[in-house]
C-alpha cells in the first residue's frame, strides 16, 4: 500500500525526489511512465475558443430563421400532401365518368354498381357516373343496348333522340341514325322524345324513324333477338339492315343501284356470313358479290 501512496503522490506531482528514487526501484514504474508519456499523444485537438465563439455568434444570429423553417417546412409538406390527396380525390372519384364502348362485331355484358345489367350491341357507347350511382341512375347511350334494371330509383337512359325512364324492368333501346326504338320486355318504361311522352308496358315497342312514330304490341320474346346472335327487323328501311350487317360482321357493304328506303322485314344470323347475306338479299332479289375479306357488293339484278 505504500507503493500506492507513492504513486498517488507521483500522479499528484507532490512527490519528493527521494520518494521518486524509491518508486523508480519498482520494475513496473518504467511501464507506468511510458503509459503516462504515450497517453499525452492522445491529447484532444486544440480547441480555439475565439474562432468557436465567432462561429457561435454567427449561428445565434441565424438561429431564429432556422427555427422558423423547422416548422414552416413540415407544414408545407403536409399541405402539399393534402393538395395532392384532394386533387387525386377529385380526379379519381368526384368526376368519375365511366365510358364503355364496343367495336364492330363485339358485344359486351356490363354490370352497373346497383347490379343492373346492360348488354351492349356492336358499335355502342355508354357513359355514366360511377359515383352516387344508386341515387342518380342516369346513363348516356349511343347505339343499341338491352337493359335489365334492378329495382330502385328512377333509371334513365339518355340518348340524342329521347329519354327512357324506368323503375325496374327489362328493355331494349336502339338508337341509330334517324332511328330510335325502345322495346319493353318487362315492367313499364316511360319514353320521352322531343315530340311526345308515352308509357310502354311489357310486350310493347316504340319506334321513331325519319321523324315518324310507330307503336307495336304483342312482342312475345323475353330478350332482343340480337342477344341470341340474330338481328331481326320489322318494316325497317333497308339501309338500317345493311348497316347492322356491317356492324355485326365488321364489313363494308357497297350498294349499287339499290333503293335504301325499301322496307325490310326479316332477320339474319351473326354466326354464318353466307347464310346471313342470303337472308337479306334473296327476299329483295339482290345479288351479292364478295370482293375481299371485308368488302361485299350488293346490286339489284337487272
Amino acid at each position, binding site marked *: 500500500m505504500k507503493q500506492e501512496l507513492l504513486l498517488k503522490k507521483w*500522479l*499528484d506531482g507532490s512527490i519528493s525526489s527521494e520518494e521518486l528514487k524509491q518508486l523508480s526501484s519498482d520494475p513496473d514504474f518504467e511501464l507506468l511512465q511510458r503509459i503516462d508519456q*504515450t497517453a499525452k499523444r492522445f*491529447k484532444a*485537438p486544440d480547441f480555439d*475558443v475565439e474562432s468557436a465563439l465567432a462561429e457561435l455568434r454567427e449561428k445565434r444570429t441565424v438561429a431564429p430563421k432556422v427555427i422558423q423553417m423547422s416548422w414552416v417546412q413540415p407544414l408545407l409538406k403536409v399541405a402539399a400532401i393534402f393538395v395532392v390527396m384532394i386533387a387525386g380525390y377529385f380526379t379519381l372519384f368526384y368526376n368519375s365518368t365511366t365510358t364503355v364502348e364496343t367495336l364492330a362485331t363485339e358485344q359486351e355484358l356490363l354490370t352497373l354498381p346497383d347490379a343492373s345489367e346492360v348488354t351492349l350491341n356492336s358499335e355502342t357507347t355508354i357513359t355514366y357516373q360511377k359515383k352516387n350511382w344508386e341515387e342518380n341512375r342516369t346513363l348516356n347511350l349511343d347505339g343499341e343496348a338491352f337493359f335489365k334494371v334492378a329495382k330502385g330509383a328512377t333509371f334513365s337512359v339518355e340518348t340524342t333522340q329521347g329519354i327512357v325512364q324506368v323503375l325496374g324492368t327489362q328493355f331494349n333501346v336502339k338508337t341509330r341514325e334517324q332511328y330510335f326504338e325502345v322495346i319493353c320486355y318487362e315492367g313499364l318504361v316511360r319514353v320521352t322524345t322531343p315530340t311526345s311522352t308515352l308509357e310502354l308496358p311489357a310486350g310493347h315497342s316504340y319506334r321513331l324513324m325519319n321523324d315518324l312514330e310507330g307503336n307495336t304490341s304483342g312482342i312475345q320474346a323475353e330478350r332482343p333477338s340480337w342477344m341470341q346472335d340474330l338481328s331481326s327487323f320489322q318494316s325497317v328501311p333497308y339501309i338500317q339492315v345493311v348497316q347492322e350487317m356491317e356492324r355485326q360482321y365488321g364489313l363494308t357493304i357497297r350498294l349499287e343501284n339499290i333503293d335504301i328506303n325499301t322496307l325490310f322485314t326479316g332477320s339474319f344470323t351473326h354466326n354464318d356470313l353466307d347464310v346471313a347475306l342470303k337472308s337479306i338479299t334473296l327476299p329483295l332479289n339482290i345479288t351479292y358479290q364478295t370482293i375481299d375479306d371485308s368488302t361485299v357488293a350488293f346490286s339489284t339484278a337487272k
Partner: protein
Amino acid sequence: MSDNSSKNVCHESVYEQLFRAHSKDLHDFLYYKYGASNNPGDVVQEAFIKLWKNCAKVPFEKARGFLFTVANNKMLNELSKQKTALKFQKEPQKISTSVTPEFQLEEKQFEEKLEWALAQLSEAQRVAFMLNRVEGKKHKEIAELLDISTKAVEKRIYGALAKLKQLIQEKI
C-alpha cells in the same frame, strides 16, 4: 463570487465570458469521454445555443452545470447507447533519425495497445485520467468540473493508471 448572482446570462458580455471560461473544458471533457468521432466541437456549439435560448431561466452560477448536462445528454442521444469505437487523434510524432525501425515499430504497437486500453476504461476513469495527465489539470479543478470530491478524482486517476497497466501487461 457574490457579484455573480447579479450577472444575467442573457447579457452578451456575460454569455461570452461563460463561453471563454467553459467551452474548452467542455470540449475536452466530451472528447475524452466519447472520442473524436462524435464531433465534440459541434456539441459544444449546440449546448451554448441552448443556453442562449434559455438564458432567462438559467442563473449564472448554474450555467456550467447546465452546459455539461445538456452536452452530455446531446452526446448520449447521438450515440443512442451504441458502443462506438473510441478513436483518438494522435499528435504527430517527431521521428528521430537515430531510432531503429524496430524501435519505431515497437513504439507504434505500444501506441495502439494504449489506445485500445484507454477505450476499455470507464468513461469516468478516462475523463479524470486524461484531464489530469494530458491536459495537466489539478485534482481540484477536475473535481469542480465534474462536481465530485478531490478524493474521488484521485481514486479515478489512480484506478485508471492501474487498469491501463494491467491491460497492457495482459496484452504483452
